[in-house]
């Protein structure tokens, strides 16, 4: 019993010590300080996958994935706007109507996926993750300070399948989402926020799925600090001044 109490106390102490660190996990120091925190963010369409596991196979819900992805985008946009950010929801219709924008979006998403596949939370403050010129080009095209990429996944498992999964292994119910914010000036990854939601086994109505989506959107955004334009480092020198200065320096 004494050992158990000591273990609980030790765990509690460890959790207490790590609370501060955990609160900052998923942000670069510069984002937290405000130096790289954007004023404006473009939100790209969430890559959403809604899946129903059945007893003998998997049923994808492609149409619903598009619908709930759009809901997720709207929920995230509302929270960020409430926090003072200027939010652009860049929806698929807008992207598909503008070939240059489509190019930039597809390139940036591929670069983001490559980058995020190597993501380790502890390494984020080291600023080793960069999405490259494609993200910067996209931000420049959209006229924003940052780009937000998001993924959403919800798996619904009937009770029978859940029992089978518990016995022999396999996919169970669950929902998770992730938002990554990339600085538009540098291409650096500034924020990664992950949210999960527990999904009880059993069929789900669209309203219930919508509620999970809302929970995930809230989880992804609740720790994002509010916009603070006063702290953001802006370029003070105009293009013309830089060009003139470069010309002079090169001639010297």
């Amino acid at each position, binding site marked *: 019993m004494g050992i158990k109490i000591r273990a609980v106390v030790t765990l509690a102490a460890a959790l207490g010590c790590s609370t501060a660190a955990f609160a900052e996990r998923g942000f670069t120091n510069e984002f937290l300080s405000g130096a790289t925190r954007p004023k404006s963010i473009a939100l790209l*369409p969430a*890559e959403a*996958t*809604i*899946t129903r596991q059945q*007893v*003998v*196979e*998997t*049923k*994808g*819900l*492609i*149409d619903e*994935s*598009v619908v709930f*992805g759009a809901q997720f985008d709207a929920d995230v946009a509302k929270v960020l706007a409430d926090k003072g950010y200027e939010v652009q929801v860049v929806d*698929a219709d807008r*992207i*598909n109507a503008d*070939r*240059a924008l*489509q*190019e930039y*979006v*597809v*390139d940036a*998403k*591929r*670069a983001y*996926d*490559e*980058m995020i596949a*190597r993501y380790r939370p502890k390494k984020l403050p080291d600023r*080793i*993750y*960069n999405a*490259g*010129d*494609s993200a*910067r*080009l996209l931000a*420049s095209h959209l006229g924003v300070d940052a780009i937000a990429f998001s993924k959403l*996944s919800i798996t619904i498992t009937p009770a029978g399948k859940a029992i*089978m999964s518990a016995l*022999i*292994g*396999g*996919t169970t119910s669950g929902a998770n989402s992730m938002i990554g914010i990339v600085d538009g*000036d540098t291409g650096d990854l500034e924020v990664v926020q992950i949210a999960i939601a527990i999904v009880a086994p059993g069929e789900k109505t669209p309203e219930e799925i919508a509620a999970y989506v809302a929970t995930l959107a809230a989880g992804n955004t609740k720790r994002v600090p509010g916009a603070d334009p006063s702290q953001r480092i802006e*370029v003070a*020198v105009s*293009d013309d001044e*830089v*060009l003139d*200065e*470069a*010309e002079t*320096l*090169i001639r010297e």
Partner: protein
Amino acid sequence: MRRAFPWLAGLVCVSAASAGGVYEPVSIDKDEWRLIEESKDLEGWFSSQSLLYMEPKTLALVRRVGHEIRPQPTDDYIEYEFFVLRDPSPNAFALPNGHVYIHTGMLARLDDEDQLAALLAHEINHVAGHHGIIEHRATRKKTIAGMVIGSLGPWGGMISLGLQTSIYGYSRELEQEADDRAIEVLLASRYDPHALPDVLDILGRDYEGLSPRTSTVWSTHPEVRARAETSRALVAGVPRRERHGDGFEAAVMDMRAMTIEDYVQDDYPHTAVALAESLVARYPSDLASLNLLGDAWQGMGAQGPLDPASQSDSDKRHNLRDRARKTRAQRLAEALETEEGRAAYAANLQRAEETYQRVIAADATFAPAYRGLGEVYEQQARTRDAAEAYLNYIKQAPAAPDRAIVMSRLRLLTTQLKVGQ
């Protein structure tokens, strides 16, 4: 011109019978209708992710060739249509409802319309033979544990097993059947059947020395080479036909360039160099192609020449793991700690510089070459040269879409020049 080859048709029929494709109407149950519905929905999902490549010339080419060689649908749930997906990986797949998708990374590797026809003929036969439905039925009979398949790629979690099968490959027998019947389709068309082994040869080339990222029927894989040999033997006695190349080139030129840029961005530099060299060999006076070659050499970073044939599977798996764990910058930094890496880095930058200079010598107003030069000089720590190159870029292309990026580099370089770095 449309000559029949009875011996080949007989061979194909035998092959089909043993493989189990059904080229007659197949009625499907309610559950299988779901596959058809999902196949249709997938188009909307690709659109929602902006992955449909809609460039009119390229899309028109693919659809014209596809509709020219496709058979009449045997079932009311099959409606042939052809799409291009904006994805640099070399892949193509067919869905049970007749929708055939070809990746830009596949299209960019083909040389002519006949090869495109061969590729589409293969995919069409997966539809015509009801391979998706057959494999779906076979999979349903397997054990539940066997059904619990993990993520099979970016779309794996969302789509049904029947569709996953169509995307990630059928059984070896059905693939062979699709190859065999593709030759029959080509024989009945104006296209050269020898294009099929050509396509398989092209796809058997492993430029990067990596195991496939996602195992697909069209990805780099030893079986592709075996299939190439089999199809080559099948067409050995067939007279070659004139290839159709001109219209193809005009339709895919921009897409080829875009795909090479994709390979540079995604860090597949050996592939980028190989494709860019092929482009330059074909169009020696095209400065955009030459500039792409400069970009590709620059993208090589500290990687030296590679001979994938000399690499073991273990080497390739190691390369893949290393790539999965580390960022590009981390791998470059590690390579630069070695003498070999530093030498390769210097040589690649030198090649890139020479290539950009060739472009500028031919046309001093060709802006992208200045940007490339600026990037090379930055990496060589030639601050003044880099600033001058970027300045020239802005002068030649004041409204370039990447002006903001280049200006931010120029700002930094100007600061460095001022402090005498």
